[in-house]
């Protein structure tokens, strides 16, 4: 496909810091290669802003190959933009038309406060993980070979699919309730499906869900928006599994 160049108008959320009141600012950007990724387009914009002695737009990014989960951005009304199954770094400018106006907003959730411009604080996800998203393993030197425990192929596949979650927060951004259930559902499922996860299973789901609620995420209403916007195609089947795990834990836990 031949490289084309397009001229676009950008409406970008600018906010000095977490306390400041933000607003949408309009920028014109000419000569954008359709081969460039969305983040490269933003780099081009920032060069233009720096050359004009303006403050560049702050946005999250890291690996730029769709695996780290750092890039966010609510582009033209959708998390990670118009493509499905992609992160923002995997989105290319060939998806946009010449003369198009593109809206770029940060993830909007009470649990993801804005740090600056398009950068939000997603440490709520870290705290949920710390509450139970792990298995305790003896590392005293007599560590058991993980492969010594048999795992059914179908369970391994499902656990792997759940573990594909990169914690980007698109599910929260896309959900009309800012619910984090797909993220937590995936993290609970990846352990619930494996024998190694059984030991701490009940505590895990109780603690992770408690932390999720404390962070101020909304409740799930099963709209299914999260699984459509998830760059890793994680299914809401994982939310159902988390619901099952929590109901089981709530009725069977020894704790009061």
């Amino acid at each position, binding site marked *: 496909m031949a490289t084309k160049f397009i001229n676009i108008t950008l409406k970008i959320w600018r906010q000095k810091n977490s306390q400041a009141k933000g607003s949408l600012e309009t920028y014109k950007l000419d000569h954008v290669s359709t081969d460039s990724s969305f983040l490269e387009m933003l780099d081009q914009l920032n060069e233009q802003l720096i050359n004009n002695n303006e403050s560049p737009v702050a946005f999250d990014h890291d690996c730029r190959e769709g695996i780290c989960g750092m890039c966010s951005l609510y582009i033209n009304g*959708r998390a990670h933009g118009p493509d499905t199954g992609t992160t923002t770094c995997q989105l290319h400018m060939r998806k946009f038309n010449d003369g198009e106006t593109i809206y770029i907003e940060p993830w909007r959730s009470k649990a993801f406060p804005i740090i600056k411009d398009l950068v939000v604080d997603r440490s709520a996800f870290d705290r949920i993980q710390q509450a139970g998203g792990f298995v305790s393993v003896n590392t005293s030197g007599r560590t058991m070979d993980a492969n010594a425990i048999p795992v059914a192929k179908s369970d391994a596949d499902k656990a792997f699919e759940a573990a594909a979650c990169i914690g980007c927060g698109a599910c929260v951004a896309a959900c009309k309730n800012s619910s984090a259930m797909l993220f937590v559902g995936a993290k609970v499922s990846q352990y619930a499906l494996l024998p190694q996860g059984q030991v701490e299973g009940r505590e895990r789901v109780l603690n992770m869900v408690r932390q999720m609620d404390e962070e101020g995420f909304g409740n799930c*209403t099963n709209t299914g928006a999260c699984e459509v916007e998830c760059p890793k195609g994680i299914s809401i089947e994982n939310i159902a599994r988390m619901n099952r795990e929590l109901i089981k834990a709530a009725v069977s836990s020894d704790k009061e």
Partner: protein
Amino acid sequence: MSVRTAFSSSIIKKVWMALTGLFLCSFLVGHLAGNMQLILKTGEEGRRAFNEYAYFMAHNPFIKVLSYVTYFSIIFHAIHGFYLTYQNKKARPLGYAYTKPSANSSFPSRYMAVLGTLILVFIVTHMANFWWRAKIKEDIPLHYKTITKEQMQQRIKFTYILTTKGDYMPFSVKEENSGMYYDLRTGQPLINSADSCMFKIKNHQELYDKDTDLKIADGYKDLHTVVMDFFNPDKNELALAYLLLYVVSMAVLSFHLWHGFASGFQSLGLNHKRYTPLINGAGKLFALAVPGMFALITILIYLK
């Protein structure tokens, strides 16, 4: 997390919404089965079948328990739904300037609270029209039928009341042309119409012998006529307005069920490659068929 906090967690909140919602789905099936009796049989037979059914619904202890569970479910589902919606709104204090939710979710799934509020408004009007009259105001007339006979060049009107014993008890007899009442036992003309009665009616439906004050039986309330007249343009000038309100409300209910039925199963953790497509299909069929049948019955009554 203690188990007590587990029960107040966001997931258990969903479970409560699912349990009450799915119970109300089963209530709809029962209610529809009852309404079907408005059209399955016609004439006196249909009227009798429906009023007998209504009496059963008002007096059977099992149904009484079920009705309290239903009241609870409606109130809980509504209040809890409002609370969850408030929490969900709070989770995103500042919304997006530009958002395209139609790209990832269905219309009913995003407007469950609005649809639910409209259904609640309908339930209030519905109960004011029927439930309030039957349970609180108690102004539903008894089930009676009149037979006019020609006797000695006179048209005599006999009125009978249907009792729960299953027979029609003679109530009064009136000569049509003169408007005179007669004593049913002696056949003598009476001045006071009340004296023509064979029994007294107490508590709006209990029949007592006029002389001995002994209870004879209960009379069936004529809820059938109340319902039929309510949607009959000849008897109620607002019938068309009520019909339209009813049909629109059923459309709203259909949208609510379109998402709600299958969503309830997902909230309970029931999701499986094999049966989830079946549940989704059944939910959509349920959402179309049940409110559709309710609306159809009402339209048929209106057109009759």
